[in-house]
């Protein structure tokens, strides 16, 4: 099975994987996110459909909140 890297952690990749699938898999429910797939920023409105290719480096940057 193929892999992708999310914030430095390797996870399994599957066919037709989208940014939304990655967020769900990682349980990333926080709303203030910036997402990059292989260095390209993905706009919020494209999260549902933007394809994540096998071997991709995905950065899901959580803008600090809390406290």
């Amino acid at each position: 099975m193929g892999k992708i890297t999310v914030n430095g952690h390797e996870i399994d990749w599957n066919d037709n994987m989208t940014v939304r699938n990655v967020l769900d898999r990682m349980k990333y429910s926080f709303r203030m996110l910036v997402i990059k797939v292989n260095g390209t920023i993905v706009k919020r409105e494209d999260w549902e459909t933007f394809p994540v290719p096998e071997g991709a480096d995905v950065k899901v940057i959580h803008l600090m909140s809390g406290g």
Partner: protein
Amino acid sequence: MNISELKSKHKPLKQMPYEPKELYRGYTDRTLYINLDTNDVKIKPVPAQMKEKFIGGKGYGLRLLWDGTRPDTKWNDNDNEIIIAPGPICGITQYAGAGKSLVVAISPTTDIVIDSNVGGFFGPFLKFSGFDALELQGKAKNDVIIVIDGTKNTVSIEEAPAEEIDSHILAEQLTEMYSDSTDPRDMKNVSVISAGHAAEHTMIGMLNFSWFDIKRKKCRLKQAGRGGIGTVFRNKKIKAVVVKSAGVTQDPNHVADMEAIKERGARFAREMKELDPHQCRMKQEGTAHLVNIMNDYNLLPTHNFKFGSHKDADNIHSRVWNSKFTQGMNDGCWIGCTMNCAKAVDNFVLKSGPYKGQSVIVDGPEYETAAGVGSNMGIFNADTIIELNFYCDTYGIDTISFGTMTAFAMECYEKGIITKEHTGGLELRFGNEDAALELIHQMGRGEGFGKIAGLGVRGMKKYFAEHYGADMGFMNDIGMENKGLEYSQYVSKESLAQQGGYAMTNKGPQHDEAWLIFMDMVNNHIPTFENKAEALHYFPMFRTWFGLMGLCKLPWNDVEPENNAQTDEPAKVPEHVDNYVTIYNAVTGSNINKQEMIRQSERVYNFQRTFNIRRGYGLRKHDAQPYRAAGPVTVEEYKSLEEFYDKKMKEDIGVDPAGKTVDEKVAITRKYRENRYEQLLDAVYERRGWTKNGVPKIDYMKKIGMDLPEVIEILSKHQ
């Protein structure tokens, strides 16, 4: 008894008229000193050096407390002080979150300086009445009320035997008593500081700061929660401090450049309007929006920080709080705050205690309260959390400490360290809502196990060891306190940086110095010790600055500009940092930049560290953390995430977990994590300009301009 009857029982002890003084560029340059031993009232000028080095707010509090106390002053000594200081920016109404006061005292639970940040109208009204800080020392013989009347320019001390003690009643009584009329437009010009019955019987007393909500026609309460300042307040027999203002004008601070402030305020208001509904929803849910998020990331403390999530967490999901909070109200705790996050539950009918059956307004719950008196105690019933929130507030105790200490007692009960015999019949099991409610009422009455639990986690550990022969080693591992202060409500096990963000604080583990979990654990942005050390320098210094100014932290990063992600350092929110630099300069007429902003904080932060050293603390050993903050103490915890911990053992430690018992794996993990924390201490101390023992170096203090002779005298003994 009606209000005039209550007032007729007052016995005047002192009334002093004073010369009014208008603010100029955020300052009056004088402070108000009141001694309750002698009923002495004095106005003290602020020396130029104090203004330059200590800026205001917490800085002023620390300077006055250092000067007013001895190195061995105890919390209940007459010379301990409570200092309430806003800051130069406090009181502006054109930018969000500008109504904060900082309160400092020697803490009953930590024996060092505690500082607590609080909203409500008191701080701004104190400034408008002519004072940059209020310094309270001594102890009254009987219960007193102190009244600062900024309309008549008088300060009075009055014995006040008849008013209620609990805050939800007392704030209403005194607001009506000192208002010119019962017209809400007059009522809003009065603010009251009060505590409550449990502040008299526990070490975790807090202070409520009121404001009058014109739309609801009720007093609202915000809390200076941490470290037992309410306990000091009641020990001084202060029932309340009242301030009365002539009202709020457009520019009471007489700032240098109002247009610059307005422009930044309008920009921020647009962000709130357009972005908040898609970001944190602070206007609808306040900080309670975090509950389900923390659960999803395994950061929501449950069962005394054993775990980070729970199957019933949906019962306290942010959508539950959204439905409980009255929507569409103006919920700012200071005028002009466009964040409006001080949410409230209206018409809540109490099911227990002395006010059972009454319909009340409850301020909150905020995230910390929902997690503290909820999930961490195994309680996932929103109405019980609201009820505990109400009683913590009106009894004058800190929801964070109450939650963490009760969770500790519950774990001790479930482990058999304490039994029904010790608790007077209370079955202190996780999730036992009735027992939790009875415990808080015992604190209110000063009875039974409530008095023992009210000692705090550190006090309980000592008591259980001395009286019940409990194992101190195990209690030190699971008792979530550092420096004597109970942890606030985030699970830090998987974020080494946050472990430092908690245990390396000056006052104890409160998240207001640094909240680095996402940067560290989730984003993986600060992987090296040097990265973490840089974050543990910058963020505590940056956030200290809010406390110097009289500002709220929330508008900094709980809504963020749309283009923030494209900036160089999104975690710092550069545009908002620039807002603050601009506003500071526009209020005071100064010309600082963002580097000088950090330098202002470095001076005060290191002064506070030195203050702790002066009192016999503030060294490396005092930055030690309970192991539960760093990793799984028990087999039960390890097994709850066995696959995850096994993977970490293999990848991070380089040890194959195959064939090892869980006990062995717990021990291996612990050795590794404890070592990592020691390495973190080394890295952070180096970055902060401290010795290996955590003492600020004299050369560093010279470099930052905090080489005052009294500071150097202390530090030179520890170089």
